[in-house]
């Protein structure tokens, strides 16, 4: 047997995760706009209709509020729906179902009725899709008790975490990224590689400064870290993977080691994930900080349409480099 390193795209990894879980558990089904006949607006559900049939892979009308509600009801009744939003921007319509019905029912029913559902789809900005289609919802959903929020970066995490999400008895927000769908990463080995929810991963270890980030921005952070390494700054990059529950221990341990922290996200800064992490570190590791925490965030404007302006709105590698230098008092 030869040890070949095979690669796989995030798109395929997500499809594999769903297929494997649907084979394993007949209660799992997929619904959403264009998920069946068209094989997914971003071709994530390729082959699923063929394998599982139209009872388990269901095309819905174009009404997020409606089909999200159907999904929540099915979950209350004991099924395990995966609800695909063509993007989470459209999922805003369904936010009442997600927060008020899916997230709160376990608590409001005194534990009698849970909602094992996964809401998944691309989140945040793609390229040139305008203000209404380019928003990061990580902090919106992470704000609410009752929801778990996952935002993977590479293929192994996408597959392993989606499988964990489908198996989890709680409502889950699974934030994908359109830009990452086509990116190839090392493929998961073996069928049953489940990544636990709530565990961050140190994707690059370093001693001078910590940067926390998630999803597409992990790649940006890694590029910045490489550039900074050539300038003598050793950056530790933490991929949060799960936004909620947040892996506080990994962040705190890292900050205690490096004494410096920058947070990176493409969403807006106000009450964002970086704000939450800043507060955490201030409360729990104040005496370990040698510099104020720096947040690197999307600019506080609706996303422009022009490509040149998009570049001025979403964090870029050189922003990260500059910010890290500031945190390290090197600017």
């Amino acid at each position, binding site marked *: 047997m030869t040890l070949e390193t095979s690669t796989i795209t995030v798109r395929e990894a997500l499809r594999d995760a769903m297929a494997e879980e649907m084979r394993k558990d007949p209660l799992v089904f997929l619904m959403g706009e264009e998920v069946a006949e068209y094989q997914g607006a971003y071709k994530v559900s390729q082959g699923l209709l063929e394998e599982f049939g139209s009872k388990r892979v269901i095309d819905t009308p174009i009404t997020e509020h409606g089909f999200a509600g159907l999904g929540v009801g099915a979950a209350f009744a004991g099924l395990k729906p995966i609800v695909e939003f063509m993007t989470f921007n459209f999922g805003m319509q369904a936010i009442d179902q997600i927060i008020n019905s899916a997230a709160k029912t376990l608590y409001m029913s005194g534990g009698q009725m849970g909602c094992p559902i996964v809401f998944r789809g691309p989140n945040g900005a793609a390229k040139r899709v305008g203000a209404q289609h380019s928003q990061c919802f990580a902090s919106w959903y992470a704000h609410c008790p009752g929801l778990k929020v996952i935002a993977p970066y590479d293929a192994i995490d996408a597959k392993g975490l989606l499988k964990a999400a489908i198996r989890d008895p709680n409502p889950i927000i699974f934030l994908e990224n359109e830009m990452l769908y086509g990116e190839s990463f090392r493929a998961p080995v073996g069928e049953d590689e489940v990544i636990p929810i709530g565990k961050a991963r140190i994707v690059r270890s370093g001693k001078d400064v910590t940067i926390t980030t998630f999803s597409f921005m992990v790649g940006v952070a890694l590029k910045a870290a490489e550039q900074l390494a050539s300038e003598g700054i050793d950056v530790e990059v933490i991929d949060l993977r799960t936004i909620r529950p947040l892996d506080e221990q990994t962040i705190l341990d890292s900050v205690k080691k490096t*004494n410096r922290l920058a947070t990176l996200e493409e969403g807006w800064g106000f009450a964002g994930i970086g704000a939450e992490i800043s507060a955490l570190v201030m409360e729990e590791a*104040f*005496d*370990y*900080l*040698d*510099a104020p925490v720096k947040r690197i965030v999307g600019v506080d404007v609706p996303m422009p349409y022009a490509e040149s302006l998009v570049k001025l709105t979403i964090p870029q590698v050189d922003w990260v480099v500059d910010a890290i230098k500031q945190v390290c*008092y090197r600017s």
Partner: protein
Amino acid sequence: MPIKILMPALSPTMAEGNLVRWLKSEGDKVKSGDLLAEIETDKATMEVEAVDEGILAKILIPAGTENVKVNEIIALLLEEGEDSATLELVKPVDSPAKNEIVAEKKIEENKHTNIPVQSPVTDKQTQERLFVSPLARRIAIDNQVDLGRLKGSGPHGRIIKSDVEAAIGQNTQANETPSTSYKAANELYPAYEEIKVSNMRKVIAQRLTESKQSVPHFYLNVECEIDELLHLRQKINKSLPESDRISVNDLIIKAISVTLKKVPDANASWVEGGYVRSYKHADISVAVAVEGGLVTPIIRGAELKSILEISKEMKELINKAKAGKLKPQEFQGGTFSLSNLGMYGIKDFSAVINPPQGCILAVGTGEERPIVREGKVEIATLMNCTLSVDHRVVDGAVGAKFLKELKHLIQTPVLMFI
């Protein structure tokens, strides 16, 4: 709510000062106009007067605390009938914040225990807020690095980890350099050792140089017959267990304090800026030789204490001094000094004034000498006393009056007890 007593500003530019002494204790009744505490800046000493009536319920800043910020709460006054539970409602953070978490915590602790606490890291070098990263501050506290001495390399002069670590590195190096270095003989000098001096010696050098250079000293000398004093001491000691026996020095302390009450003008200090401090009590600093130098522990309010009390306190202070365990408030301050070299057989000497005090009395040995009394030569035990005087505060006539009264007391010691 309790009435807050704040650190007063004695001048428009005063930012902080020393709380020298409390003139009231916790639980004392206070009337408007009563003197509560003595506050000192580098310019002046003044008493804090009570404005309101009530009971001094809580002293938040203990006597002897240095660098107390203006407007910081120093004590709490309860009005008649007010519940002491309300004391807990007053937070010291009402005052302009001390610039460190640590210090704030200490104050909180103080509130409950009233034990004088010194902040482990002092920022006293700078009047302004010191910017230190939390990590650097913690490392500094752990390693007892004085942040006030460091220069921050971070933004806005913030002291960061590397600055503190550099300072720790230097300290270790400094400790490693030998404190004594041997030098071979040269054309001018034989072989010698250069011995690095202790902090105590540095302070002695600095203060006494300053005193001799800036204080206009003059000296007055008297001879006292001490036969009666010795006789009295013998009588007292006969009735005391050996451990409680009093010394000639104890009697002299008492005599000085009683004399200062009669000649209060000699119990004073010169203050730059046009003041003379006239002290209300005789706090006698007594020079005690210790390993590597000397210290001057203080018998406070000696005129109010019995000879036995003075003797007992002096014994304790000497033991503490020799063990290096004196607290700052036990040797800082004082209004008048006494230096006695009698036990070394010194007949006569002049002492250097211990600033900011106005006078120091140098006492020689008691020895039998012939004297002429009413045309006849007699033998008496004589002791020479030399008063060194700061002429800015005490003139010749006042000094002479002091010595005359002191001599009278020493020669007629029973007067000390009336």
